[in-house]
């Protein structure tokens, strides 16, 4: 597999080039995010934690990563 071949995706609205064989789990590890405290949506659909490893990135995917912040 050509690991150097990259695809363009959006992460929280920002364009990024990532290896084409990456899963969401790879992305979370790369960003040093604790997957236990976030929720990830791919193209507006929530991807549950157990599916991060088997959900692979495709060109043009919109990934959004959310966490809890202070609120009332």
């Amino acid at each position, binding site marked *: 597999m050509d690991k150097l071949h990259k695809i363009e995706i959006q*992460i*929280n*609205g*920002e364009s990024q080039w990532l290896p084409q064989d990456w899963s969401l789990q790879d992305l979370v590890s790369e*960003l*040093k*995010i*604790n997957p236990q*405290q*976030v*929720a*990830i*949506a791919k193209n*507006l659909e*929530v991807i*549950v*934690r157990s599916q991060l490893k088997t959900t692979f990135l495709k060109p043009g995917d919109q990934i*959004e*990563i*959310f*966490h*809890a*912040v*202070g*609120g*009332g």
Partner: protein
Amino acid sequence: MQNQKLQISNKTFHSRLILGTGKYSSNTMMQEAHEVSGTQMVTVAIRRIDLKAPPQESMLSYINQDKIALLPNTAACFTVKEAVQTAQLAREALKTNWIKLEVIGDPKTLFPDVAATLEAAKILIDEGFVVLPYVLDDPVACQKLEAIGCQAVMPLAAPIGSGLGIRNPYNLKIILEQVSVPVIVDAGVGCPSDAARAMELGCSALLMNTAIAGANDPVKMALAMRQAVEAGRNGFEAGRIAKKLYANASSPMEGVIQP
């Protein structure tokens, strides 16, 4: 002397004060206010992570989740779709199916869109959520929300963050008569007497953020609110005397010294 506990869905609470986690000057200040207030449930918002910001300690590490349950909200959602998606994200991020449902209808007053709130509540209840909706002090809306399966209703006292206090105690009384799920006053409380008043009316609990976080001394205000909620609730459970127009002496009128 036994106090009645608050029961919402499958959870029992000793504290009738639900607090927010926003607007505190520091996480340690928030933590101390929560501790002093005795709260057993706090609200949090769900937002995108700022990937450009330097890594920060999570606000969650300042909440003792052994004692305090998390109640995520759908604040700042203006449509059914946004609110439902936010609830789904909250369930995934925080591992709770409880949601404080807010669907805002107007950015200036932050009043809820009642029709959209009902629609979102239906969807979320079907998906297995425990839905606690923020709603106007509208008895008909509260009845409808109860009828579709909301586990509590949360009418506002006044606009969010306004500190105006209870603008329509009579509507709250009607709501209390007409629904059997817990009635939690959410938003608008400014001072301890507002909190006590809501509890004296018979409300089950209070949810507040700005009144404490925005006080000059949030920790002292958290204590004052705890005392007010407890005093108001005890007063309600004790049963107040009827109001009368004329005096009714407390000391015997007989046996007074004769001139």
